[in-house]
């Protein structure tokens, strides 16, 4: 009798999973032992850092790939043997060189080095692992990153070792505090610092967007190039953080709030003038803006009021369909065209009314049931739109041909020329969306810091107590839904004109999940968080095309892991940041200390004093 094939696979699968787990446990064990060994030995720090930095320099000069891969040569001449091009380093190898040189320089500089070395070390590890994974993956094994007999390429391996050495040099000896730089500087200096740092941010973003081109056949290695650059930037930022510069800048910008906002706005509007000023990135940025504005609206509902809404994209859709119907498109129900601004207002009102209607069960329905009610609403909206309800949505045919916004003879989809600089088409949409996002942020911030915003947060924290404080919770919750939906409606109106086709299938459940993920990733209740979250969720899939198929699964894992390890998100809002500031002695955020219920009472008591 033949043994069915599944058993054979299982016989391979189970041992390999166990092996993998074993390997991870082993690495973790070794790491822990290593840490335990070096921590009480500060004298090891210096030799480790010098050695690590030196190895890093060697790694940068070494070849990284033994042969030219099928899809073309790996970037930055990483296949050339050392003697062919002793000093030709660019791209990620240049970054490796830079990081190592800085690490070496720091050894001799009179500053606190531990955190810097750790940051640089992690960055090196990141670059080494990313490139090694891609070369080995595409080249069919470890031969591609070590030696294939005739040629050798140990760049990645050495880089990894260098990074580990640097990290451990940072671990040797006691943890050093981050220097606290004074913000008592003259206004001129402060302004100059802010302008410079925000401009650097802009250039960094532009560089990142352009890293490796747009992918596709012309740039098969866009993914690793982008990730390497990301690791490099992370290292640089980490090092700056270690010397207290990032904290300093952040405090400076807090102090000069309005100036910072103006500069930030100017910097955002400067993006089309950089190398990222292409049609493609303008379109992507506009999409990010639409999602960000919607996510901020959702943030009111989820982040502030603590109500889970799983059908939120419907409000975006309602806004889009309303705007499309008043746009003068051939398939529109309304046979006339309204000025864009009027259409936006109508879209906002209609979406807001639906928001209030959807939110109204909150008067009676418990919090988690509401999630199902909103999910139901999202599905009903989709079904209705698909069936061309009232002739308003075009059904399966959608509403195509929504004309671009046209203000004073300036059609928004055409390229633009300002003072001799050619700007890509779609730049006007970009400007519009930047203004819109800025406005939405102001709305969010103002509401949050008001009586109403406090009542939302109070409801989120403890609904019974909120009611006992005289808050009419039902009314407040409906208001949250109404305002959130209104913002989404406005974003939808822009979306309609920008995409030109409004189809029901742009507003499916998974889009609601994406919006929710943007809010959670960025940080619930945090203002910049939603924007950052939306940007990450839209830019990363664009840059990492190799993983396009894995987008959603990574997404799901991200949701789980964030809730588990960093529920406050990447850019936590003020309150949650305050929690973080109260780190335990070992730098462990409080969140992580009181997780499992079987933790011995000691740790908790210690945290709670």
């Amino acid at each position, binding site marked *: 009798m033949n043994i069915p094939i599944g058993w054979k696979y299982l016989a391979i699968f189970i041992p390999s999973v166990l092996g993998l787990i074993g390997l991870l446990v082993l690495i973790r064990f070794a790491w822990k032992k290593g840490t335990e060994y070096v921590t009480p030995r500060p004298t090891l720090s210096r030799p480790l850092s010098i050695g690590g930095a030196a190895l890093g320099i060697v790694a940068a000069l070494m070849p990284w790939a033994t042969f030219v891969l099928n899809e073309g040569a790996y970037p930055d001449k990483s296949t050339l043997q050392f003697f062919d091009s002793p000093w030709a380093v660019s791209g990620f190898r240049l970054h490796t060189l830079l990081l190592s040189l800085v690490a070496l320089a720091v050894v001799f500089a009179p500053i606190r080095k531990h955190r810097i070395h750790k940051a640089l070390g992690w960055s090196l590890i990141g670059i080494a692992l990313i490139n090694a994974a891609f070369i080995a993956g595409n080249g069919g094994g470890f031969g591609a990153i070590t030696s294939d007999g005739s040629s050798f390429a140990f760049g990645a391996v050495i880089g990894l070792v260098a990074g580990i050495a640097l990290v451990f040099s940072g671990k040797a000896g006691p943890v050093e505090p981050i220097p606290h730089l004074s913000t008592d500087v003259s206004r001129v200096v402060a302004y100059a610092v802010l302008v410079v740092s925000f401009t650097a941010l802009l250039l960094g973003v532009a560089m990142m967007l352009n890293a490796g081109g747009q992918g596709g056949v012309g740039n098969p290695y866009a993914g690793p190039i982008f990730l390497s650059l990301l690791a490099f930037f992370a290292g640089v930022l980490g090092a700056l953080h270690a010397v207290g510069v990032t904290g300093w800048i952040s405090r400076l910008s807090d102090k000069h709030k309005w100036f910072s906002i103006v500069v930030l706005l100017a910097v955002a509007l400067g993006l089309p003038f950089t190398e990222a000023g292409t049609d493609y990135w303008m379109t992507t940025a506009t999409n990010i803006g639409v999602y960000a504005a919607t996510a901020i609206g959702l943030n009111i509902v989820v982040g502030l009021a603590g109500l889970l809404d799983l059908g939120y994209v419907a409000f975006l859709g309602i806004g889009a369909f309303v705007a499309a119907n008043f746009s003068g498109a051939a398939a529109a129900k309304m046979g006339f065209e309204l000025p864009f601004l009027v259409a936006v207002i109508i879209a906002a009102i209609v979406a807001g009314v639906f928001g209030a209607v959807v939110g109204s069960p909150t008067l009676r329905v418990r919090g988690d049931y509401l999630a199902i009610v909103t999910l139901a609403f999202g599905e009903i909206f989709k079904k209705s739109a698909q069936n061309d309800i009232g002739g308003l949505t075009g059904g399966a045919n959608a509403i195509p041909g929504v004309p671009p916004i046209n203000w004073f003879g300036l059609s928004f989809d055409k390229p633009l020329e300002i003072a001799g600089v050619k700007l890509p088409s779609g730049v006007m949409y970009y400007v519009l969306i930047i203004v819109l996002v800025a406005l939405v942020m102001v709305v969010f911030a103002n509401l949050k810091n*008001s009586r*109403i915003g406090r009542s939302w*947060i109070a409801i989120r924290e403890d609904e019974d*107590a909120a009611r006992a404080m005289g808050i*009419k919770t039902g009314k407040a919750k409906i208001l949250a839904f109404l305002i959130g939906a209104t913002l989404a409606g406005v974003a939808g109106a822009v979306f309609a004109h920008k995409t030109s086709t409004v189809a029901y299938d742009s507003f499916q459940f998974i889009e609601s999940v994406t919006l929710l993920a943007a809010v959670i990733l960025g940080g619930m209740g945090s203002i910049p968080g939603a924007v950052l979250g939306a940007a990450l969720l839209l830019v990363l899939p664009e840059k990492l095309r190799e993983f396009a198929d894995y987008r959603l699964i990574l997404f799901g894992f991200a949701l789980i892991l964030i809730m588990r390890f960093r529920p406050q998100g990447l850019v936590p809002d003020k309150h949650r940041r*305050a*929690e973080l500031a109260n780190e335990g002695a070992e730098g462990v955020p409080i969140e992580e200390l009181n997780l499992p219920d079987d933790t011995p009472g000691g740790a908790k008591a210690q945290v709670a004093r």
Partner: protein
Amino acid sequence: MTATSNAPVLAASNVTMVFGGLTALKDVNIELHEGQILGLIGPNGAGKTTFFNCLTGLYTPTRGSVRLKGRTLPSDPAQVTVAGVARTFQNIRLFPSMTALENVLVGRHSRMKQGPIASLFHGPSFKKGEADARTRCLELLDFVGLSGLDDELARNLPYGDQRRLEIARALATDPAVLLLDEPTAGMNPQETEAARQLILSIRELGIAVVVIEHDTKFIFSLCDHVSVLVQGELLVEGSPEVVRGDPRVIEAYLGKPPEEVQAEVDAYAAESSAERTSIIEPIRDRRPNEGGQQ
């Protein structure tokens, strides 16, 4: 103040509460006057919490009525607060991720007027209202002894301070009557004494206070008037001295001679406070208590 001392601020008359077939409260009458501290004691299951819920609008009495300054209380907790009855919770229910000041500002909610439009634009009148509220709330924090802690997250405050913050938050609603549900639960003797002083100074503000407590010593040393609930009925009421000496109370509630009880109570307080301070968990870990009486 125009109210005369013989018109009660809060009056519960013949309050009866029936759940299914079970009568939890039967014809309970209470009168509370301005500047008075009323203690409410009784063994477990006597109906203290049920009565408390009737006062806060969570339950509507099956029969009888609760009147505040002559008007029947509405049946919604939010409206009860607006009308002038503020409360604290037996197991602290602060807003853990908000700062101390923000917690108190939430209490100020019903006394502020800004609507959504004003909140959107942050105009001059909004700013003035907000500034006034902040000033008032900072004063209240000062009053309860939390000055300087306004920017601290509620969850990071020590246990005793959380209790005080809850009182400040309740005071922010400008109440005529303040209901305190076991305000000294889990406190050590020093903290208990400080709480006693605080409640006395609240009375100075002209606010009537109702205190539910297990700690009979605390009640007898604090209150002007004590009511004893047993099995849903008002057993005895009167001045602390009268109640303390009443044989029915000793029998029904204490079950032992007063001195012995007193010793036990003290021992319990010392033991429990020692125990509780060592296992205090951050408040968000705390499950809201379902029944209230344990």
